């Protein structure tokens, strides 16, 4: 910042003299003068930054900060929640099935089996145990996901603050325009409330739709 170049050297010398001679009134006066100058320049700079920010945030294009804050961040959180829910469900299914396998194996009467068969069954039992142990990933990934969701939530709040402070009305940010290009390339599973619109919810719906087309 070039402020130091603008500090009036003479005024500073006068200030020192006033301080040395105990002239409090004069010292105050000179100090006020010097700081006022600095404040004005700071104020100008701040004004400039705010204007720039306002302009940047004015952009309502699809990838603009405002659109991303209002739509993409909550969307990302919703998707992470889906990941947590889906992996939990899958883990529980795997656990249930592996446990059932173990029960079935345990309930086979040993007496009717050959040595070879018993060994094979023991290995199968161990495999089932390995499947059970492997599900522990879900706990660790769940913790990681929770942490990421916290970070996203915090980021979202910071950006909302920024948007409000720049003089924009967060609630007045309009809906995003939909693009067909995304559907052509593929958008992945429809797991958020908004993306479930216009989507079929089951294979039966797909079949009905295709049937109606003669396929």
């Amino acid at each position, binding site marked *: 910042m070039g402020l130091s170049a603008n500090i009036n050297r003479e005024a500073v010398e006068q200030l020192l003299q006033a301080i040395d001679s105990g002239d409090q009134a004069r010292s105050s006066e000179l100090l006020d003068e010097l700081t006022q100058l600095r404040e004005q320049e700071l104020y100008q700079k701040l004004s400039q930054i705010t204007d720039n920010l306002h302009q940047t945030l004015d952009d309502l294009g699809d990838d603009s900060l405002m659109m991303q804050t209002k739509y993409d961040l909550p969307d990302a959180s919703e998707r992470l929640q889906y990941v947590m829910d889906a992996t939990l469900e899958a883990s529980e299914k795997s656990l249930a099935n592996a446990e059932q396998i173990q029960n079935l194996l345990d309930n086979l009467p040993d007496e009717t089996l050959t040595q070879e068969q018993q060994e094979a069954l023991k290995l199968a039992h161990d495999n089932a145990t390995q499947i059970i142990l492997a599900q522990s990933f879900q706990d660790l990934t769940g913790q990681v996901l929770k942490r990421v969701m916290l970070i996203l939530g915090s980021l979202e709040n910071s950006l909302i603050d920024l948007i409000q402070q720049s003089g924009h009305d967060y609630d007045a940010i309009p809906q995003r325009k939909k693009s067909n290009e995304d*559907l*052509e*390339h*593929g*958008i*992945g*599973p*429809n797991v958020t409330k908004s993306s479930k619109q*216009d*989507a*079929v*919810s*089951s*294979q039966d719906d*797909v079949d009905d*739709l*295709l049937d109606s*087309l003669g*396929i």
Partner: protein
Amino acid sequence: MQINRDMNILVVDDFSTMRRIVKNLLKELGFSKFDEADDGATAWPMVQTGKYDFIVSDWNMPEMTGIDLLRNVRKDPNLKDTPFLLITAEAKRSQILEAAQAGVDGYIVKPFTAATLNEKIQKIFERVAERQKAN
């Protein structure tokens, strides 16, 4: 009806877990000859060799989507009748319509069951047999 369980199948999906599951299910149904590709772009040159009797593909892949792969297959005079099944998370009505228009033989949405896969394969090859009879 008798489906040729010896046919060459190409499984295309950018997620290896998915390819593994599809192959596993197809094995359960009695098929045994599989090749894999991790993108429409890697699949296309493989398909062009004319080796495959059946293509099972995802939609959403980075370089070439499943729907573009389908279009390429249908455009090629030597390949255009290759049975093509999409197994995908893409579930918007407009997307299903688009796939139908592009000439897909079957459309399965994820997550799916072994029964659905079996049913769709049966249906696809019944129609293939009907087409051949007609010709």
